[in-house]
């Protein structure tokens, strides 16, 4: 039969195509395979306000300061600066010497395509660019109101067609080729942290001028890796920067990281090539890690139970040489109230809801029992978090919750309108929302879930168009101020204070604390403010999460870090071990 033959041939062709479609990987290459679990927006340091874009930028761009790779707690060290700055006694003037001989990466924007040496003036330009209203930088907040004359400069040119970068700003000056001076509008010790953030990376005005709006896809920095052009793809391949300065692997470490000193003193970066795979869905990411195609991966919440038991990896994984790393994250998850709504001014209602929230069960369901229970806003590991403080209105106590609700004027929820609870529309958020709804039902509070796609959820928060909402905050820098500012009145939406909580007494304390240098007095004040937030149940404090990361045996020097975005230069691959371990897959 002719037709049968055709079908037979087709089947055979299909079958032969099936086999051998998966590629074998080459273990001898010194290359890192990394996942970015979110899309990368682009490579403009002024715009990189999300964690994942920040991590990509740090492969190419550098700032004056950085965090020490092997120290806990986080310690600032000079990076492009020659040394830590001289700070005047009044805490106003910061004077930096910058490193000599640091080159921009080669690019067609420079004469002969050769990158030139960086100067103090480049930092002045980069920060002015961050401040320029025409950049519409979402990193502007780090400088807003901080430097003398910078806001005035910004406002002056906001309405004019071109911005004059040559006009001097008193608070931001290059004294000579290698000396940079900042003058703060008021004392703000956290200013140093902002100089370690990606926003304040040094960029070159030649490159900005050449590529114009496309600058975001043409990264040219001073860092360890280069990327000729970003094409918004799913696979970003970086290669070693041949003109990278002499920078070496640290030789000292905190006791926790003593075993990561094998490469001490070696010239950075340690691997020749970085491949970043953008994989948003967790199923493919996890499966790829399991096949050894990715060097490390944070365990998806739903794969946790099979991968980890009692903080130990399953034999199946550890048999492949995979190791588990646990480390606390500098973050806070919370359930917020919108204080524009008078209903939530009733502190007893808030307390009742907090008491009805079963944090233990929630930890078990959504965090695999790995999170710490948040007593207040400040996560562990940051000065201001009092280990002995226990929030009196946290931990499931339905009797107390019901009593509190009656005292609030809503016995068994009577008279209380249905409350809308806004969440982003991810599968996990939806499950958390359902769980919160179930919990509140127990004391008679009716919750209606409203899930929105991320942009709409953001817009709702920023327009104050919510009643209650689920949120998380990751630290910008390791200081309690960054968490307490979430409740500072003037930061209300569209700022970071999505609750629009505005308590004059708290605002005043906040203003006092931010001007103080790190001291036991300031820590005491932080603790006091944190306690007030907790006892007033300003939000329902949920968790401080921990990162659970698995890595393959061949990946060296890795540890979790919330703030070291520049980790990739320190990582190394043991190619012999990789070849050996891959045989087990």
């Amino acid at each position, binding site marked *: 039969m002719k037709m049968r033959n055709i079908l037979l041939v087709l089947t055979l062709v299909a079958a032969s195509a099936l086999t051998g479609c998966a590629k074998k990987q080459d273990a001898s290459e010194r290359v890192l395979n990394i996942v970015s679990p979110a899309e990368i927006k682009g490579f403009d340091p002024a715009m990189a306000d999300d964690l994942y874009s920040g991590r990509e930028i740090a492969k190419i761009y550098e700032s004056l300061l950085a965090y020490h790779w092997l120290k806990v707690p986080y310690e600032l060290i000079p990076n492009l600066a020659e040394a830590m700055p001289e700070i005047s006694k009044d805490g106003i003037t910061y004077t930096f010497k910058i490193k000599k001989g640091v080159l921009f990466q080669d690019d067609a924007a420079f004469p002969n395509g050769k990158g030139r040496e960086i100067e103090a003036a480049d930092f002045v330009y980069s920060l002015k660019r961050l401040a320029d209203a025409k950049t519409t930088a979402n990193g502007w907040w780090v400088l807003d109101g901080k430097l003398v004359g910078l806001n005035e400069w910004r406002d002056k040119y906001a309405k004019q067609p071109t911005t004059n970068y040559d006009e001097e700003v008193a608070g931001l000056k290059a004294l000579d080729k290698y000396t940079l001076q900042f003058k703060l509008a008021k004392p703000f010790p956290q200013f140093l942290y902002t100089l370690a953030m990606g926003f304040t990376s040094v960029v070159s005005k030649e490159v900005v001028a050449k590529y114009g*709006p496309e600058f*975001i896809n043409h990264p040219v920095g001073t860092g360890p890796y280069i990327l000729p052009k970003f094409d918004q793809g799913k696979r970003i391949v970086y290669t070693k920067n041949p003109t990278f300065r002499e920078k070496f692997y640290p030789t000292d470490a905190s006791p926790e990281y003593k075993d990561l000193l094998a490469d001490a003193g070696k010239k950075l970066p340690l691997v020749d090539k970085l491949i970043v795979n953008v994989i948003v869905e967790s199923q493919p990411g996890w*499966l790829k890690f399991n096949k050894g195609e990715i060097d490390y991966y944070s365990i998806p919440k739903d794969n946790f139970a099979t991968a980890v038991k009692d903080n130990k990896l399953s034999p199946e994984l550890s048999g492949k040489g995979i190791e588990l790393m646990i480390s606390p994250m500098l973050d806070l998850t919370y359930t917020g109230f919108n204080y524009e709504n008078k209903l939530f001014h009733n502190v007893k209602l808030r307390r009742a809801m907090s008491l009805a929230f079963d944090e233990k069960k929630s930890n078990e369901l959504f965090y695999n029992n790995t999170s710490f229970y948040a007593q207040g806003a400040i996560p562990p590991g940051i000065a201001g978090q009092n280990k002995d403080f226990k929030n009196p209105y946290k931990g499931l106590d339905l009797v107390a919750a019901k009593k509190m609700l009656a005292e609030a004027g809503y016995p068994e929820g009577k008279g209380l309108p249905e409350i809308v609870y806004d969440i982003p529309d991810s599968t996990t958020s939806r499950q958390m929302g359902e769980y919160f709804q179930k919990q509140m039902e127990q004391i008679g509070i009716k919750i209606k879930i409203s899930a929105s796609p*991320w942009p709409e959820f953001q817009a709702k928060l920023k327009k104050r168009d919510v009643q209650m909402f689920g949120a998380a905050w990751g630290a910008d820098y390791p200081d309690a101020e960054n968490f307490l500012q979430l409740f500072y009145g003037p930061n209300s939406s*569209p700022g970071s204070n999505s609750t629009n909580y505005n308590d004059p007494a708290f605002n005043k304390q906040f203003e006092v604390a931010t001007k103080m240098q790190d001291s036991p007095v300031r820590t005491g004040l932080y603790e006091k403010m944190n306690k007030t937030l907790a006892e007033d149940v300003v939000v329902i404090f949920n968790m401080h999460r921990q990162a659970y990361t698995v890595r393959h045996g061949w990946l060296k020097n890795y540890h979790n870090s919330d703030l070291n975005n520049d980790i990739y230069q320190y990582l190394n691959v043991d190619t012999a071990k990789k070849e050996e371990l891959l045989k087990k897959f």
Partner: protein
Amino acid sequence: MNMYSYILRRLLYVIPVLLGVCFIIFIIFNVVAPDPAYVLLGRHATIEQINQLHKELGTDLPFWNQYLNTVKTAFTFDFGSSWSSKQQISEMIKAGAGPSLTLTVPLFIITFIVSISIALLVSFYRGGFIDKFVLLLSIAMMSISSLAYILFGQWFFAYKLGWFEIAGYEPGFPNFIPYTVLPVLLYLAFSWGPDTRFYRSMILDEVYQDYVRTARAKGVGELSIMFKHVLKNAMVPILTYGIIQIPMLFLGLLLAESFFGIPGLGNITIKALNTSDFPVIKAMTILSALAFIVFGVITDVLYTIVDPRMKLK
């Protein structure tokens, strides 16, 4: 009406339809969609920054002005640049079209070959066991959700059996092949059913025509009837059916692209939706609408050329 004026008329019809499409897009993105400024400015935004950005994006203009801008975009193909990545949108589309086409073109061709072969086979044995079995199988396979196919297929074939790449993409032939085989096969699993059924009924339409009976009466063999007469005549509706699917090739495969990490147009669209990147979404919508309209015209025109029985309307 002669053919040329008919074609011209059909082509001119693109204009009012495109204006309508622009109007709907304008309503969606300029009137009802959430303000993009909030997402673009991030978590530390200030009111002053938001106003500045509105000016920059042109979203502070009066509505009629914004509508005119949308129309201008559609007719000049000047889509501008993306709000979030600042890339030229035309560049983004060029970059995304490749990966999408490496998925959709093989899928289109394979589905076509497979469906038409099966359709021929079952029409040959019409009413018999094979016919009934294949029909039932096709209905059964199209009754399962595409998401279920993708989830299960990726987990089972790529991970458990290790036959395919789990996710990812490399540009250039033949580098992309390991990444596209599995999504193509999974899509084939639920797209062959409807196509086969359609082709079968088109072929059967012809089988019962008088000329087939005449041929059979004359003693022409069944196989030769099938290929020489039936298939030739059934080709008209079959080809039109194929052509009308072509615009869909350019849209990419939404679910598969995001699950298998393929940087195609479907992925660009989803990313744009998540970052409120309206110019990109508008461009994708306008282009796909245009493709639908143009291929609609082509189908109509082809129909009138190949099948003179169709009256020009």
